[in-house]
């Protein structure tokens, strides 16, 4: 019998537990010729803030061993531009749309969240408090527990949509952030964002990226992400969405085993655009072969 892969992430009902990771799947149309968006568990779009933004200068990315270092700097069309240009397209699919939001101030975060509250077709908000590439300190919200608490509280009171704070990996006690999010009324948490990193050029003696530092993603960060997801999942009752280096079903099954209720595919989509669909199918095949009737029987079943 085909196992039941459906899952509910803080009110977002998904047909399977695999979503796209913000910033790695554009706003949808970029991959629509290659991937059947209807088969995704959810689509998470590139980070959106209040006004249009241009992002960083070049180079914005560089490849490193088994990974990618990026400092794109969150260019985007802003709330209005996004709703006008992309929501009509996204509404044609039977797949939950999760909007990833960010801001430069607490007020901005809250205002972006409030604006999306009245937009039809949005299933939830993922809050990027942890972008390593924004000068004005988005990362500070993700690595200072007091700031984190203030921003999550402010957004919570600004929206009725399912709220998913996205945690930074570079904190000393991830459980503290997970618990704080839960206490502030988050419906789920997601982790990890890319890991702050550096690449330099020996010939020029300069950092390779225009932004100097960037965020590391891809297979290189998977073991780091797995530990953090494992710790966070033990700390809270709300569902955990896991990402960080997932490129096949077995990677995803590991995150689900340690307690994640859903996963997101990021950098791997750049290489094989259909990765998220293959991950979802592969999870189904694995559970069927193991005789496990439902995804929920696998989630968190790690033996201590």
């Amino acid at each position, binding site marked *: 019998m085909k196992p039941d892969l459906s899952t509910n992430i803080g009110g977002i009902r998904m047909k399977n537990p695999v979503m796209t990771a913000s910033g790695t799947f554009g706003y949808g149309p970029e*991959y629509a010729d290659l991937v059947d968006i209807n088969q995704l568990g959810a689509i998470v779009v590139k980070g959106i803030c209040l006004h249009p933004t241009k992002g960083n200068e*070049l180079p914005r990315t560089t490849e490193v061993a088994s990974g990618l270092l990026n400092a794109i700097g969150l260019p985007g069309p802003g709330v209005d531009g996004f709703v006008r240009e992309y929501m009509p397209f996204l509404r044609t699919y039977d797949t939950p749309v999760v909007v990833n939001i960010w801001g430069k101030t607490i007020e901005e975060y809250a205002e972006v969240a409030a604006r999306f509250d009245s937009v039809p077709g949005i299933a939830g908000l993922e809050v990027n408090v942890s972008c390593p590439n924004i000068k004005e300190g988005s990362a500070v919200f993700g690595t200072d527990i007091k700031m984190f608490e203030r921003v999550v509280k402010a957004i919570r009171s600004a929206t009725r949509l399912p709220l998913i704070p996205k945690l930074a990996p570079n904190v000393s006690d991830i459980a503290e952030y997970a618990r704080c999010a839960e206490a502030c009324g988050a419906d789920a948490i997601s982790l990890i964002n890319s890991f702050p990193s550096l690449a330099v050029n020996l010939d020029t003696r300069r950092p390779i990226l225009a932004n100097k530092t960037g965020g590391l993603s891809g297979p290189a960060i998977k073991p780091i992400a797995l530990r953090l997801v494992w710790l966070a999942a033990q700390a809270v009752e709300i569902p955990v969405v896991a990402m960080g280096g997932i490129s096949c079903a077995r990677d995803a099954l590991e995150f689900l085993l340690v307690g994640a209720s859903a996963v997101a595919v990021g950098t791997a989509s750049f290489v094989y655009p259909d990765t998220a669909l293959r991950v979802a199918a592969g999870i189904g095949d694995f559970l069927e072969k193991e005789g496990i009737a439902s995804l929920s029987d696998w989630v968190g079943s790690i033996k201590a």
Partner: protein
Amino acid sequence: MQLEQATVIAHAPIQGSYNLLQMRAPGVAARVQPGQFIHVKVPYLEECILRRPFSIFRADGESLSILYKDVGKGTRTLQYLEPGESLSILGPLGHGFPEVSAGHFPVLIAGGYGMAALYLVAQRSPVKGVAFFGGRSAQDILCVPEFEALGWKVLVTTEDGSLGQRGLVTDALDAWWAREGSAHSPELFVCGPGGMLKAAARRAEERNCPAWTSVDNNMGCGVGACLTCVLKVKDGESWTWARACREGPVFNSRDILWEELA
């Protein structure tokens, strides 16, 4: 665009550090427009996670080929691929060259792999024009017989004088323009290193002639999602980013902010 598992038909060094890789890829080959590219996952190179972009050199029926230079890990490892082996390609990608405008005379300007990237322009153009190929030495000049076989006149320049005229491609272009340019209405199709693109764009602007330039910004996804490959293009009085992989790699040279191009 599609994701396709291609099979190597033939693969061999051609000259210098250039290699010709021909593959069977019926899905992608059928839809190729001149100036488009494929994004290749290099087999046996697991620690390099990104694909590598290569212009489509030829596309005939069910097969297509690329002409690539060994410049790093990916292009070095690619050379191990043997006939019969398969590789994952994504394509055809990007926005290629338009057909020459009515009443215009096509002028191709190429350096490096640009000679391969312009082959389909030459092959499919209803009007045969003139092609200027430039490089450091004879080893860097590719495909001259192929272009001549299509009925194009090819003018070669090398910096060391080992083939054709000594000098830069733009020296030959300027001389031709002074001699014959006024008899035609030239339209430029350019693919080569940044300096060559800029020099050609400057001439097009001075002479108010249309020019299409193919840029080779570093790429990530190749489909418009990651925003790695962007360049600054004019937007009224201001500028905006355009994606080389999606809106490009071929741009109307008038639109590019050349002084900002890396």
